């Protein structure tokens, strides 16, 4: 692909590696980029374990950030730690609402969650554009009669602490801790167990007395909440304000989608998503460097991410076949593989 673009592949890849890991700053940047990917990815782990597909990370990030930013601008004189905690909670709530709507639509109206989350993305983008050009626009912009769609800056005290001199902020640590929390949630709590049970086989789960609909909503709601958290952490840790270029990717950096890639690459396991997020964070940072050094547009990374998704999903069949062969082997010679192993995961339209 790089040869096709008439770029020296070695030079390009070297630029990518140096750009991502070449200095303290580069490593910090990589981790900064990895943070929203990990948070969105954790939400994706929860949703996909429950066999609901959440494509709405972009919209959930936006709504979480809107709520979190609004409280930060509205209440100016709180102690910093209190406001940051409150803002994070609001981000969590905002994302949860946006994801929860899609969950309720799926559970109670049978609306395919893939479609509703995509629509909710578009709605969130327009909502953001409206608020940032109108009600939430930076008063300074209005005073200068210029109309850059952005909010005012947050107070200094409200910023997430940084690991100076780099841009690495506390959000990375929060995301890391939450990865373990999600792991414990999914595999060590009743709710987590039920979400996974619903994901594995909704009919069996219903027979086992689990209110399936409620857990479908819960899975999407939690999934959205983590994306919302990612959104608010972007604001409080990186930009200190919300700004839009009219598209979703302007604010989120595409993390709502790339988080899916990271989670898939981490085998939908919260802990596995940690290195996967760092890898894709490195790709994103390195791509910028590559663009400067070797004139390879960073859109290449988007295309490659797409291929990664396709390959990861496609490779599932080898795992399933291997598992079936193992089951057949343990079941004794001459016997057929148990039927449930052959059943592909069921997905209600």
């Amino acid at each position, binding site marked *: 692909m790089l040869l096709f673009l008439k770029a020296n592949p070695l030079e390009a890849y070297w630029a990518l590696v140096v750009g991502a890991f070449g200095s303290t700053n580069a490593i910090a940047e990589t981790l900064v980029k990895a943070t929203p990917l990990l948070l969105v990815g954790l939400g994706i782990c929860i949703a996909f374990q429950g066999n609901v597909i959440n494509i709405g990370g972009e919209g959930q990030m936006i709504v979480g950030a809107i709520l979190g930013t609004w409280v930060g601008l509205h209440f100016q004189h709180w102690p910093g730690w209190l406001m940051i905690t409150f803002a994070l909670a609001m981000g969590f709530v905002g994302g949860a609402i946006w994801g929860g709507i899609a969950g309720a639509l799926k559970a109670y109206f049978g609306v395919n969650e893939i*479609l509703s989350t995509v629509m909710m993305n*578009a709605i969130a983008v327009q909502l953001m554009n409206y608020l940032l050009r109108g009600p939430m626009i930076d008063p300074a912009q209005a005073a200068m009669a210029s109309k850059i769609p952005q909010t005012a800056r947050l107070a200094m005290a409200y910023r997430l602490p940084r690991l100076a001199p780099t841009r690495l902020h506390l959000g990375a640590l929060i995301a890391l801790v939450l990865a373990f929390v999600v792991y414990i949630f999914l595999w060590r709590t009743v709710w987590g167990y039920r979400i996974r049970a619903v994901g594995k086989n909704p009919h069996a789960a219903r027979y086992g007395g689990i209110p399936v609909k409620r857990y479908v909503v819960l899975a999407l709601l939690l999934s959205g909440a983590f994306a919302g958290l990612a959104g608010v952490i972007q604001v409080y840790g990186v930009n200190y304000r919300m700004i839009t270029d009219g598209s979703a990717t302007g604010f989120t950096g595409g993390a709502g989608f790339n988080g899916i890639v990271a989670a898939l690459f981490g085998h939908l396991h919260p802990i596995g998503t940690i290195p996967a997020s760092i890898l894709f964070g490195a790709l994103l940072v390195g791509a910028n460097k590559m663009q400067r050094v070797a004139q390879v547009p960073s859109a290449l990374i988007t295309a490659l991410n797409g291929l990664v998704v*396709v390959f990861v999903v496609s490779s599932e069949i080898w795992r399933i076949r291997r598992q079936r062969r193992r089951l057949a082997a343990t079941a004794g010679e001459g016997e057929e593989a148990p039927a449930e192993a052959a059943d592909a995961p069921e997905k209600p339209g």
Partner: protein
Amino acid sequence: MAKLFSASVLIGILASGVRLAAPYLYATIGETFGQRSGVLNLGVEGQMLLGAFFAFYVTLVTGSLWLGMLAAAGVGALMGLAMAFVTVNLQAEQGISGIGFYLFGLGLSDLLFQKLVGTVKTIQGFPSVHIPVLSDLPVLGPVLFQHNVVVYAAYALVPLAWFVLNKTTIGLKIRSVGENPQAADSLGIRVAAVRYYTIIQGGVLSGIAGASLSIGLLNVFQQNMTSGMGFIAVALVYFGAWRPLGVLGGSLLFSMVNALQLWMQVLGVPIPSDLAVMMPYVLTILVLMATVSKVRAPSALAKPFEREG
């Protein structure tokens, strides 16, 4: 507000609505065939973007709109082939692999645009076809009969798709594969072949859908110019209850609301434009809520099929 209801504005809204429905029609008809055979292709958006780019680029280089169309169909077919291999042979989860193809199309079209074209350029698009008598009719003329060949072809596709799905052997095969692949297989229908056929056809139509946007309506290419149209097309298939006529209704409804919204901005109706742009998406969700629970999807939708033994 009164301006909105003058005759000329209403005609304008209807005419743009009819025109804007064309990309949705190509994409939704293609997706209808795929879903009827049990394959949920979420890569439509990516296929549209690549189709839009290649149509534009080939037209820019060769000066031939028809070669551009052909290129769009070709790249759509290739994407369809890849999707078919991944979902039929490798039995990948269809929803997620579709997203993969979306990201691939999004990135690649952007990449190629930056490398090969660079700046925003326009081309000479298809001229509108003047039909004697019909085009000159008052009201009906501007609304229905002053479009270009790409728009007419989109509407011609609807009865054709209906006929193929409901009155031909291949249509019967497609439907039976989507409802009960096991039974179809035991009757000797080659499930994999049928699905390959519908996915590739869907890819071709998605590619043309993209082309209808870049060289049929707007005469430019921009990064991410489809901005979610492919996903809306998938939603419209659900809305249209997997029937070509239903899909036509959905596409028209959606494009009419969109046209209304565009005209409201042109006329300066005091609704913030961002909230107006939101309308079609909200409408889609509401319509999905109202219809989805009442109609039944093809039973085997999004389920991979594997022959026993």
